[in-house]
């Protein structure tokens, strides 16, 4: 199991997190091109056994686990030491992690120590046919450009991958794979950061889990007009998101922000209302399945990524639309 492709699986309170299965999707695509094996590393405490099997069912040929009380909560030093142990023992060619609060912390820490390159927040990955090198593509300069980056001379080639930028790998029951349990490395017993407590988000609001999102932009003109948006969202059974301009004006709170400086979302249905479509915003939503936009400006950039667009005044378009949707519901 040397020179393979590795993903950094994540767990929360012992349960394997969804980002792990997104990373398997990425890993499987690369492994199919390069012919390498796909392995997963997972660190935590009291990790559910079924989760390890699920990693195999969804594509891992091997799962390396370190399960110890010291790894119960994410702490950069113990997690780095565990990852460095994997690097030493298995000499991966490629290591992919989620661009999450922990992935974006531990990967740079490890890359620096291991002296290798790390590309942040990739949205596309590929293998260069002639060299076999990992091609890592990511947005830069506020999403105005895309850059493709490689790491020719150092190993492993490391990248963090934007969450929700790819679907989770499907489960194939009965897939074969091995689980290797490693002891906690001596150095991982030591941490200069102490975890005190976790405070869950008060508002149970997770935009990234929503299958349908109605997104409001500056076209709404003022906070007083927001009930119209909520009415539309309610009629569609959708969550409410917003562009940065709406958040910056304090009309909605930051967890609602979609775009490069907010959340990346890939819902089944994305409805942009009064959203101009700044490139920074598009970077956070353009992989949504179906995109509809209403905007008074026929040249608005949002139409470039939309499947269906109404060029018109949202205050004239939404009321009859809401009415129609509601009526349809009753008929149903």
């Amino acid at each position, binding site marked *: 199991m040397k020179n393979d492709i590795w993903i950094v699986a994540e767990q*929360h309170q012992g349960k394997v997190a969804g980002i792990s299965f997104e990373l398997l999707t990425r890993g499987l695509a690369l492994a199919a091109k390069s012919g390498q094996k796909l392995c997963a590393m997972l660190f935590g405490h009291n990790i559910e056994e079924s989760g390890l099997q699920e990693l195999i069912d969804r594509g891992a040929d091997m799962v390396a686990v370190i399960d110890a009380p010291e790894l119960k909560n*994410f702490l*950069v030093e113990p997690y780095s030491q565990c990852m460095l142990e994997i690097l030493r023992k298995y000499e991966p060619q490629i290591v992919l992690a989620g661009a*999450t609060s922990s992935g*974006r*912390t*531990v990967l*740079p*820490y490890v*890359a*620096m120590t291991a002296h290798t*390159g*790390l590309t*942040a*927040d990739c949205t596309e990955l590929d293998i260069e046919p002639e060299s076999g090198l990992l091609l890592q593509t*990511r*947005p830069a*300069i*506020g*999403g*105005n*450009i*895309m*850059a*493709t*980056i*490689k*790491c*020719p*001379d*150092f190993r492993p080639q490391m990248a963090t991958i934007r969450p929700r930028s790819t679907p989770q790998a499907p489960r194939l029951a009965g897939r074969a794979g091995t689980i290797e349990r490693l002891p906690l490395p001596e150095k991982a017993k030591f941490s*200069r*950061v102490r*975890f*005190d407590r*976790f*405070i*869950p988000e008060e508002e149970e609001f997770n935009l990234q889990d929503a299958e*349908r999102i109605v997104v409001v932009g500056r076209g709404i003109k003022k906070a007083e007009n927001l009930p119209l948006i909520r009415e539309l969202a309610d009629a569609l059974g959708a969550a409410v998101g917003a562009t940065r301009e709406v958040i910056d004006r304090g009309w909605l709170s930051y967890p609602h922000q979609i775009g490069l400086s907010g959340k990346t979302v890939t819902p089944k*249905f994305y409805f942009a209302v009064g959203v101009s479509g700044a*490139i920074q915003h*598009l970077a956070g939503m353009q992989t949504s399945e*179906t*995109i*509809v936009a209403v905007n008074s400006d*026929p040249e608005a950039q949002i139409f*470039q*990524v939309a*499947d*269906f*667009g*109404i*060029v018109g005044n949202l205050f*004239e*378009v939404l009321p*009859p*639309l809401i009415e*129609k*949707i509601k009526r*349809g519901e009753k008929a149903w």
Partner: protein
Amino acid sequence: MRIAVCIKQVPDTKSVKMDPTTGTVVRKGVQSIVNPLDLYALETALQMKETYGAETVAVSMGPPQAIEAVKEAIAMGIDGGALISDRAFAGSDTWATAYILAAAIKQLGHFDLIICGERATDGDTGQIGPEIAAELDMPTVTYVNKLIAAEAKAVKVSRLVEDGAEEVAMELPGVLTVVKEVGEPRLPTLRGKLKAKSTEITSMALKDLELNTSYIGLKGSPTRVVKIFQPKVVRECRKVYAENEGMVEEAVEQLVGFLKSREVLAS
């Protein structure tokens, strides 16, 4: 307590425009500003200075004109500054940049705390903070949204994670990266601006630092940019116009039909 704040001068991305014919970023006329997310790092340092007493130093690596960023930090209330600038540093990726910054920070003497912004708005990597920590063998806490308490040998902070916040305590010396929630950055004052004019900024070049020259600049960077391109947009938008009342009804009708075809609405 001594605090270093790492800041970067970046193009004002709000004013970045794309050339529609060449598809490249138009740099002409784009203003340079202090990375907006670094202002929160500066603010955090200033709050610590006010509450606990601290000497604060702004450190920036960049071309000679990045001295303006350091001066702006001083105008906000930071005590001193250093500019790390050398042609040999050009083209450094995050690994090489962190390597150079760490060497410069070491050179500037002992710091109890190093504070960075969450990420720079041009590179958008957010890697420098943890990389500096690793290079200096310090602990790090990222995405800090609140400073709870500080003492000589430790800080207690809250950090934002996906589904909430974590309270952690970090031994000093250590590195924090902070997010917007730490507090609205103060504006430079007139007095600060005057002070910025008279404060001598330490300048550091390759010769002043203990560096392995094969680890710096474009050549010393593990990563290579091989291609830059404009994100392509591939959707055919069916546009309907609803510019007067009669058209609105027709447009809504078509939209509802479309939503049914995509199974957003029951048909």
